[in-house]
């Protein structure tokens, strides 16, 4: 008995650590489960042309821009954390389209802590408590979501896993539109 108990204790410890490693690995693989050939997916359930009743001061610059992207992130989604880490590595003034970040969080302090942790203050950003503004104006309650705004109105909503893929998709679509307009 005296020998078995410590062995059992260590085996249980090993099992817990393995289980945790598996859960961590599973969480890391969830974004990879998205179809690789289509990492950016247009969302059809949002009404094109919808404009918010008012623009919060923090995002008002995006409302006036000819074209801008609002990335809706949440501190409790692992893909959003990856996107936030990706944004921390990008230079906001060198992007092909102005970007703003909306952090939808259960509490203001949670959202602010998330924004601070990933240096999101470099972008126009808003902590939206319980997603009141974003769901009230656009009906968005999933994250991450990318909202393409044109002169303050919603042009297209996207589901995405990487910010750079989303920017590339939007810029490519803009170029195609411009070419079609010329021809």
């Amino acid at each position, binding site marked *: 008995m*005296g*020998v078995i*108990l*410590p*062995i059992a*204790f*260590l*085996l*249980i*410890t*090993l099992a*817990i*650590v*393995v289980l*945790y*490693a*598996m859960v*961590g*690995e599973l969480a*890391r693989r969830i974004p990879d489960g998205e179809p690789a050939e289509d990492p950016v997916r247009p969302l059809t359930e949002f009404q094109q042309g919808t404009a918010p009743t008012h623009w919060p001061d923090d995002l008002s610059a995006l409302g006036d821009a000819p074209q801008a992207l609002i990335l809706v992130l949440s*501190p*409790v989604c692992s893909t959003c954390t990856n996107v936030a880490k990706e944004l921390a590595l990008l230079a906001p003034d060198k992007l092909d389209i102005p970007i703003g970040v909306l952090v939808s969080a*259960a*509490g203001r*302090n*949670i959202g602010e*802590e*998330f924004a601070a*942790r990933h240096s999101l203050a470099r972008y126009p950003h808003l902590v939206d408590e319980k997603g009141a503004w974003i769901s009230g104006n656009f009906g968005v309650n999933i994250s991450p979501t990318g909202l393409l705004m044109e002169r303050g109105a919603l042009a297209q909503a996207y589901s995405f896993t990487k910010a750079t893929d989303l920017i590339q998709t939007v810029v490519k679509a803009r170029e195609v539109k411009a070419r079609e307009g010329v021809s």
Partner: protein
Amino acid sequence: MSATDSVLICGNVVLATLLIRASAGKLVTPGLTASALSELFPGLMRSGSGIVRATALAEGLAALSTVIATLRLPGQILVALLGAGFVLLGVAGLLKGSQQPCGCFGASSTRPLGTVNIAAGLLLLLVAAVNFWAPPPAEPANVAAYTSMCTAIASIGWLFWSNRDRIRVMVSALRARTE
């Protein structure tokens, strides 16, 4: 409990905690360490994952041997071999300028093979030397019980520490929901 027994407990707790974490990480994601190894030794490309899994099992066994009195010294030979291997891999990583994340403690280990592995290897060698130097424990059952209990606490504490960001967010969200 004698001072030697206390030293043995402390050394073996550190050893078992390190080895359990390393073993679990490599069992779940052997591919990361295999890529780091194949970067140093391109010939290992095919058998890399198998070697990593075998190392993970050896690490698990070495951790277990710390609480089985009859396996204490044979287990330490395995620990010394693992320690020497880690030091050699760390040195090879430094010399060849390894870039791949080593995944030595699972997917969260993003550093390439290098100084951390040398330090971990030296620590294992030191604990093995202490075990060889120390006389057999005066109260083996007590030493095994304390070792396993403290290893469990240290392992769970390390898990909490490495997942602290996720835990903080979940706790804050739960608190906000109940307000």
